């Protein structure tokens, strides 16, 4: 251990006190043993008193006088993490993290020991992304425990957790998690550069960080997957993606993401292939329906009565006969009502929220139809599209769909089916233009990679997955070296 002669830069108690604005939490325990004076300075609320009492103060008091000097104590104090070679800035920031500062008055030397007592919530079940099957554990607000969860489940020595510090004022630790011999170097480099370029005073959550790192800040669509499920995180990392944690956020960021990855849930892997494929198709149809169905209703009601078969037209006509609004207004009214219900349900305490949902959904829905403000066909359609938007396994995609619906409804109201097709074209071009960490957003579809479609569009039995998806450009693409089962002839075993 090389030691610098940095006595001048080491602050004493008075100096620290003035830097920390006379904080009442700042305590100084003065120990005098023989000729030697030692100051133990710490923040009262941030440390664990047991550690400080047991392993620092008691240890020092039990030592005989000849050992009471900097070199011996620094080498032998029974605490796992100590800091030496200190600078003033570091002393202050470490104090605020829960370190105790041990200062030798005569020698004018000091070191710090870790007595931190971080507030941690216990690891609980995932709430926003719920799985029927599979592990239920979710990330917590503590970065250490998140990394611990990942390490525990992915025991690979090539798993890297690189540390970057961001935030000018409130510095936070960011960890970039990837597997060294799988993750693509260019992507990693881009991500690291973008994080380093962030010069903001505070990043409050990982969702904020994700938005700061995006390629296109104006897009409706999320360009990173945000997840609170460790198994999803690990699945993505093993497939060559890169994960990011930030201190204090229970949500991990995964990138590069593509459009289709927002429709896969880890549950698809746990369930049998047939059901998973079926469910995946249902999700796609639900999302497409959710975006376009109300718009199609508006277009057909405003411009294209010819489209509707006469029997159906009769039913719709009957239910719309008392509606005083044009279809566009009617649809917007109901869509806004549904969004309002959802928002109110999310904001209210959970016990009241349920009641509100019932009151809003049933009473208001029934009443608007009976009052003749909307047709009940539209209620069915709007309810369907609200359901469809929530079928996306990633919450952010659901919100993107909810928002994307409105411009298309307005286009449909203005220009009918032509307007909807314009909407489709804009959406198409937008998705084609989007990139996530410089990787194309519509990836397995365009640029077309047939072999990757089995990952993103459908789900096959597991022995088909011999290679990792190539869209993430993994360095090592082989997953299975041999087929799980060789193909045998009849009557062979």
């Amino acid at each position, binding site marked *: 251990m090389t030691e610098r002669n940095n006595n001048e830069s080491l602050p004493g108690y008075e100096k620290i006190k003035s830097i920390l604005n006379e904080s009442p939490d700042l305590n100084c325990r003065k120990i005098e043993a023989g000729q030697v004076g030692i100051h133990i300075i710490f923040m009262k609320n941030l440390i664990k008193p047991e550690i400080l009492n047991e392993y620092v103060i008691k240890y020092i008091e039990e030592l005989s006088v000849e050992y009471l000097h900097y070199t011996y104590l620094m080498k032998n104090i029974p605490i796992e993490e100590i800091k030496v070679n200190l600078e003033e800035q570091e002393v202050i920031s470490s104090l605020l993290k829960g370190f105790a500062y041990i200062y030798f008055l005569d020698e004018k030397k000091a070191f710090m020991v870790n007595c931190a007592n971080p507030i941690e919530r216990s690891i609980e079940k995932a709430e926003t992304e719920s799985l029927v099957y599979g592990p239920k554990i979710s990330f917590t607000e503590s970065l250490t425990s998140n990394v611990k969860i990942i390490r525990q489940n992915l025991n690979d020595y090539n798993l890297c957790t690189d540390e970057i510090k961001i935030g000018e004022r409130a510095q936070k630790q960011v960890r970039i998690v990837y597997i060294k011999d799988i993750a693509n170097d260019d992507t990693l480099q881009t991500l690291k550069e973008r994080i380093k370029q962030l010069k903001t005073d505070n990043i409050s959550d990982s969702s904020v960080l994700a938005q700061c790192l995006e390629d296109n800040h104006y897009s409706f669509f999320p360009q990173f997957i945000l997840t609170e499920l460790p198994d999803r995180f690990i699945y993505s990392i093993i497939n060559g993606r890169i994960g990011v944690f930030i201190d204090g956020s229970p949500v991990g960021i995964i990138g590069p993401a593509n459009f289709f990855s927002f429709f896969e849930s880890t549950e698809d892997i746990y369930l049998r292939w047939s059901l998973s494929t079926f469910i995946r198709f249902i999700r796609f149809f639900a999302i497409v329906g959710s975006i376009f169905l109300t718009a199609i209703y508006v277009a057909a009601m405003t*411009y*294209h009565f*010819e*489209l*509707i*078969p*006469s029997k*159906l037209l009769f039913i719709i006509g009957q239910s719309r006969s008392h509606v005083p609004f044009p279809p566009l207004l009617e649809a917007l009214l109901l869509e806004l009502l549904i969004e309002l219900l959802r928002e109110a349900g999310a904001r209210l305490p959970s016990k009241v929220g349920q009641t509100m949902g019932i009151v809003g959904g049933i009473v208001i829905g029934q009443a608007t139809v009976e009052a003749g403000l909307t047709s009940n066909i539209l209620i069915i359609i709007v309810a369907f599209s609200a359901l469809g938007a929530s079928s996306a396994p990633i919450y952010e995609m659901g919100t993107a769909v909810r928002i994307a619906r409105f411009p298309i409804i307005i286009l449909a109201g203005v*220009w*009918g*089916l*032509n307007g*909807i*097709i*314009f909407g*489709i*074209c*804009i959406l*198409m*071009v937008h998705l*084609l*233009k989007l990139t996530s960490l410089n990787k*194309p957003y*519509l990836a397995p*579809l*365009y*640029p*077309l990679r047939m072999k990757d479609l089995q990952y993103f569009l459908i789900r096959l039995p597991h022995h088909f997955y011999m290679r990792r998806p190539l869209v993430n450009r993994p360095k090592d693409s082989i997953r299975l070296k041999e087929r799980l089962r060789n193909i045998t002839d009849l009557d062979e075993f």
Partner: protein
Amino acid sequence: MKSNIRFVNAFMAFYIIHTSQIGMGILGVPRIVYLESKKDAWISILLSGLFVSLITWLMISILKKNEGGTLFEIHEHIFGRLIGSIFNFLIVIYFIAVHYSITISYVELSLTWGYEGVYEWVWVLALLILTIYAVSGGFRVVTGVCFLSFLLTIWLLFVVYRPLQTINLTRILPIMTTTPSEIMKGVVKSSYTMLGFETLFFIFPFIKEKNKLQLFSQIAVWFTTILVLITTVVSILFFSAKELEKNVWPVVSMISTVHFSFIERFEFVAVPLWILVIFPNLCITLYISSMGIKQIFHIKQKYGIWLISIIPFICSFLITKRVDNNYFFDQIGKIGFFLWFIYPIFLYGITIIKSKINTRSRRR
């Protein structure tokens, strides 16, 4: 200089060429060819397809001989900067005209089926904004538009099952009742539909595996020919002679016989969907013409897009009547025929002579 070009796979050439061929033309081609070569219209189409296939082969050999630039670069290379630029300028004007012809013919169609009374410039402006948005994403996005619009619209082919149920085989028999000259006239008339393969001249530098390009462009050209052939044959079988001669868009009329249990009149879906079919055409023509502007005047392509887009918008106030449009399409078809069916043959000759002169001068 070319390090910043984004490459696409060779099989994307299939989508680019095919989607730029299929567009507004296919909706009217059965009538237009039928007017010239009557029952043997399908022979004209086949001959035209054969011709296109040959020209495609010729084009690729020209491009390979000229070390794979675009046609604009080849012109400058062969004729020098000044004359080459004049040639390029003519080609740019041609593409702008094609762009406008596609736009206005779609607008005409859309005004006929469900949007009577909307001003032409509204649709033209909307389509232009869409196209500018797409083209400003660069070649990768234009290719993506071709690919996705192909996927989203190719299923329209299956709606021919319905007219197939009411066809009359005697309408096409006997074969060869028209004179060869009439059939050749039909070939010329079909050019407006078959054109689009000339994009090959301009996408060449963007293709990754250049030796596979021949295969995919031939597949594209023949796929288009077969599609046009199917629509022509089915419309001849479906319509009586007089009906076909009077129907400007026989294919749309054919689609109107299709109905599902949840959609009564399918053509009202098909006509808006046709925006997706013409969208690649618009993107490609705008892209190519802006590329030409960049080559000639050395201004950035993103400004070129905006400059060019003004022209169709102004035209949308002037050329809007059916008669004018018809004349306009006819002229573009003719110019296109000479430009892309005949001119490549000359260009091929010039290239060969030029390369021979070059090799001789090198030997000395």
